[in-house]
């Protein structure tokens, strides 16, 4: 039983290392920012999840130590990875007008929130300081 669990832990460590490498390789290899965004946000999240499963198996089954931290880290990373990905994508769209021209029209007709949030948000520092506001 212990050998089986050790084998499972080692297998998850190897899978985690491979996926972390694949994600970072995609970050270095893919041609533009929007495509580069895919590799680290998906593959490395899977890799770190796999490593944390390995750690959970290792400490709970083989060392008999409590394993709440791994679950916390996994939960936190799985919650925050999509948020940081969409923030980077928004920043990239905001900075590149050639990307903005390729966007499909939005359903409401008020424009993409990424692009018009900075100018007409009443909480914005710029509009509060300008004379016309």
């Amino acid at each position: 039983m212990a050998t089986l669990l050790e084998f499972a832990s080692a297998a998850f460590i190897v899978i985690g290392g491979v996926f972390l490498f694949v994600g970072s390789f995609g970050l270095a290899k893919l041609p533009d920012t929007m495509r580069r965004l895919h590799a680290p946000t998906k593959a490395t999240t899977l890799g770190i999840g796999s490593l944390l499963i390995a750690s959970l198996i290792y400490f709970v089954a083989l060392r008999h130590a409590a394993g709440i931290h791994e679950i916390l880290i996994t939960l936190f990373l799985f919650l925050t990875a999509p948020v940081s990905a969409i923030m980077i994508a928004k920043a990239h769209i905001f900075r590149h007008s050639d990307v903005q021209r390729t966007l499909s029209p939005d359903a409401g007709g008020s424009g993409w929130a990424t692009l018009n949030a900075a100018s007409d948000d009443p909480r914005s520092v710029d509009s509060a300081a300008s004379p016309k506001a």
Partner: protein
Amino acid sequence: MIAAACTFALVAISVSLLLNVYRLIAGPDATDRILALDTMVINAIGLIVLAGIMFGTTMYFEAALLFAMVGFVSTVAFCKFLLRGNVIE
């Protein structure tokens, strides 16, 4: 068996960090550099977890948790600065 797997993952994560450093230096735009930093944080968490398994201690998990939180907050702060020219409005 676990020691061999740890060595393999250690090498893989180290090469990954080097690839991230390449993107951090070469990346044509600021968003690429933010993405490289975010990936470096994730790889660093992987290294910390691996170190915990290798040394057989659960002491490092607090460090990994702190890294995850600070890395997320810094990524969002960088993106917010690029989007709005300000972090806390």
